[in-house]
């Protein structure tokens, strides 16, 4: 049946996201919080993250290009970005933010620049993958939205 196929695909897609290290357990925790009164909760939180993170990425880029560099502000912005990412279980994004923060601590601008490029790449990849995942989930229908599918 079409529904079974779609459901299988969503499970497979989600498993891949975990296996490839894009997501961690926090994503499952978000799904646990989804219920009939808030059937799109996970997607709404993910949308919030990508809305916030776009703004933060712009601010980080501006802060990197500013002279003299304010590593304290840079660290603060990435800390916010990391925290936001951790809310949705964005593991790779979170890990790269930790690398960035280490470069801030070392006051290495070059390190920050390299790390920032990686953060942007991970962010873009995760966004694309989650958009595909939620698009598929919407095709499966409300039943799948309300039920948490464990890894």
């Amino acid at each position, binding site marked *: 049946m079409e529904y079974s196929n779609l459901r299988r695909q969503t499970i497979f897609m989600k498993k891949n996201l975990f296996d490839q290290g894009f997501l961690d357990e*926090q994503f499952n925790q978000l799904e646990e*919080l989804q219920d009939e009164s808030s059937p799109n909760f996970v997607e709404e939180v993910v949308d919030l*993250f990508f809305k916030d993170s776009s703004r933060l990425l712009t601010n980080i880029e501006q802060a990197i290009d500013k002279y003299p560099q304010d590593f304290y502000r840079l660290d603060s912005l990435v800390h916010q970005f990391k925290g936001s990412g*951790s809310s949705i279980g964005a593991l790779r994004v979170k890990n790269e933010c930790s690398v960035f923060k280490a470069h801030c601590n070392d006051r290495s601008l070059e390190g920050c620049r390299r790390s920032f490029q990686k953060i942007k790449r991970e962010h873009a990849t995760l966004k694309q993958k989650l958009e595909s995942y939620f698009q598929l989930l919407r095709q499966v229908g409300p039943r799948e939205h309300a039920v948490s599918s464990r890894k």
Partner: protein
Amino acid sequence: MRQSGSAIELKQLPRLSLMARKMIRVLLVEDEKIHRVVARAAAKAAGVNDDYVLDEAENGAAAVQRVREAAAPYDLILMDKQMPVLDGHEATRRIRAMGVTTPVVAVSSDVLPADVEAFISAGADDFTPKPLSKEKLGNILAKFGLA
């Protein structure tokens, strides 16, 4: 239909007990919307909507004001660290300086021992790493006798 006195008393009893039951008041201090949304959902899942009132403050200064002006003391304060206007450390210090003994639980992404110690030194009673979850909140409520 006229009811007997005892039936009316029995009917009134659950309503009276609901009114008499104290509502647990929790203050969530967090500047970022995404964390407030997740915390709200975690609080609802942990049962913080039925017998609990969840208030929110978007920075430490707003939190101090809420605590100062509260009609009844809060039973629990969940405090973020990094916030504009006034951060979580200073907000906790000022709340303690007011003589408030409400349990303060720091909720932060900074989880190094030095970060935890800094919050405890400021007057927090406990620390939990972000993000909040139903389980973490349930444990906190149980720890402070609020579950």
